[in-house]
């Protein structure tokens, strides 16, 4: 372990925390009428932090903080880049949306940043309690964000559902953590990994299942996925975007660490692998199948994101550098693909106050750019080349097949082709339906930038995945 300067390593986390508190303070101190420029402030600060984090990724030193309590490796930094990028894009795309909020616009950003901070802690945490606190920081921020439209019954319904289910799931996660602590006397992942091992005892089995359930809830692994669509549908669209993209990625960051360090001990047998494979397969199947009859765009994206979680699980189960690389790669492109789609959804929500698929009718006429972005994003999610999603799926499934899991690759590929069905249904509505009487949807400023940027990235990575792939490899290797 290398000694390191506390301040430099934790800079992004501290910066985000401070930023979040500043925004809260502004909300408290400055009267509502005089508050201006909170979005630019957020954006530029995030940009700065993101830039620093990227620098950190390439030139920073690996280190473990407080004897393994907190990790500063490329894996963690990779995820931090991801969270920050996601937060930045969400903030950029939500400018217009937030402007329409009746009150508490500044707090919205603050909460968003608090959630981001929670995620960053999760990615960096090397210890279960830290993970838990980070997770709760993120989740509680989300409870509030989901219910943010306080006079919208759907929003608060989603909020309370998320809260009850989230709290229950974190209770079971905690129970699992307590069992782990009981089994090993430690909550530090490295030590836990060292002391688990050998035969699988009933208690370690139970702990594993509880941890899996708790984290599976966050990544919406079937059958722990049921909350997802309801919350996605009810939440404000930018929040849905952030929830779908970043909170899931954060849970994956934790899952990867926990899985590789603890579950991947010899004790975690072939049965566990099989179970996970079955769960991943069911997740892909259920997510994609239920997405087919959906009529609400956000709900559709929710089911699609359930399916995506299934794909990502495949990479984890592969348990190899290639697999983790696939997960990391996919998680990153997933940000851009989903962000494009959600930017359009946000725009539609902002202008038309709805997120039904039929409200996209004739979007081609009303806003060609939004249509193109939406199409590209959806097709990337479906894994159609030359968009990034294809390469991502290729990495994931080839890693799985390399480990001999061929059946899951069949299911994965076939399911992703079936997913094209519902993605194309959306595309069809945009291109074909006339959309009589629906307003024009001009795209300006930040959201336009978001759309174009995400689309370009999606295409660019699809055409030339090498840079991102190298980042993902570096991050994945830092784990092994």
């Amino acid at each position, binding site marked *: 372990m290398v000694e390191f300067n506390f301040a430099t390593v934790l800079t992004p986390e501290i910066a985000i925390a401070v930023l979040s508190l500043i925004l809260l303070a502004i909300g408290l101190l400055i009267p509502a009428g005089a508050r201006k420029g909170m979005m630019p402030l957020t954006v530029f600060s995030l940009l700065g932090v993101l830039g620093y984090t990227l620098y950190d990724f390439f030139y920073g030193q690996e280190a473990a903080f407080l004897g393994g309590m907190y990790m500063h490796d490329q894996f963690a930094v990779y995820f931090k880049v991801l969270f920050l990028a996601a937060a930045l894009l969400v903030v950029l795309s939500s400018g217009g949306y937030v402007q329409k909020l009746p009150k508490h616009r500044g707090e919205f950003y603050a909460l968003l940043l608090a959630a981001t901070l929670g995620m960053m802690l999760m990615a960096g945490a090397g210890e279960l309690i830290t993970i838990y606190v980070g997770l709760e920081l993120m989740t509680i921020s989300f409870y509030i964000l989901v219910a943010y439209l306080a006079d919208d019954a*759907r929003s608060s*319904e989603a909020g*309370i559902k998320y*809260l009850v289910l989230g709290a229950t799931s974190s209770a079971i996660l905690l129970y699992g953590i307590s069992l782990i602590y009981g089994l090993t006397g*430690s909550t530090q992942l490295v030590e836990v990994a060292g002391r688990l091992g050998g035969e699988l005892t009933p208690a370690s089995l139970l702990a594993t299942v509880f941890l899996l359930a708790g984290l599976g809830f966050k990544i919406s692994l079937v059958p722990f996925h049921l909350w997802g669509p309801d919350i996605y549908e009810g939440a404000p669209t930018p929040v849905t975007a952030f929830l779908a993209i970043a909170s899931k990625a954060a849970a994956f960051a934790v899952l990867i660490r926990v899985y590789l360090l603890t579950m991947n001990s010899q004790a975690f047998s072939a049965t566990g692998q099989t179970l996970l494979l079955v769960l991943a397969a069911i997740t892909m199947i259920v997510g994609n199948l239920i997405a087919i009859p959906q009529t609400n765009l956000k709900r559709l994206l929710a089911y699609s994101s359930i399916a995506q979680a299934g794909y990502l699980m495949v990479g984890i189960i592969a348990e190899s550098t290639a697999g983790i690389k696939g997960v990391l790669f996919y998680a990153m492109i997933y940000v851009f693909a989903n962000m494009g789609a959600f930017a359009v959804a946000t725009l539609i929500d902002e202008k038309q106050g709805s997120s039904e698929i039929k409200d996209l009718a004739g979007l081609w006429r009303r806003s060609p750019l939004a249509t193109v972005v939406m199409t590209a994003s959806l097709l990337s999610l479906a894994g159609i080349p030359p968009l990034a999603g294809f390469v991502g799926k290729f990495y994931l499934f080839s890693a799985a097949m390399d480990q001999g899991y061929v059946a899951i690759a069949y299911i994965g590929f076939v399911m992703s082709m079936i997913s094209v069905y519902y993605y194309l249904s959306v595309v069809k509505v945009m291109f074909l339906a006339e959309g009589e009487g629906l307003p024009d949807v001009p795209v300006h400023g930040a959201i336009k930038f978001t759309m174009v940027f995400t689309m370009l990235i999606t295409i660019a990575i699809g055409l030339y995945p090498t840079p991102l792939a190298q980042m993902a490899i570096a991050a994945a290797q830092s784990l092994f």
Partner: protein
Amino acid sequence: MMNLSNLSVGLSTYLLVGAMLFCLGLYGVLAKRNIIALLMSIELMLNAVNINFVAFNRFLWNQKIDVHYLLTGHVAAIFVIVVAAAEVAVGLALIITIYRNRRSTNVDELNWLKW
């Protein structure tokens, strides 16, 4: 009941108490209709976990002699309490919001979002 005093109160006993509380809380979450009752049940579950942490902390062998590490269970419990308090605060605020929107705290009626 007669031999109650002869029973040694060991780890398993504490754990069983924790498990019972956990499952009672779970039952509450699954079976009650009032959202506030749900929140209370969740608190029960978190308490159960805390019993676990503290019990493990007391009864378990620990490699490290350093006192800091010996208290991990307690620290965990503290964090759980903090988080639970925060959760309750947010939860109750939410319930009030919902009550204002729908004039009901009945969880059965929260099904506008489905399918």
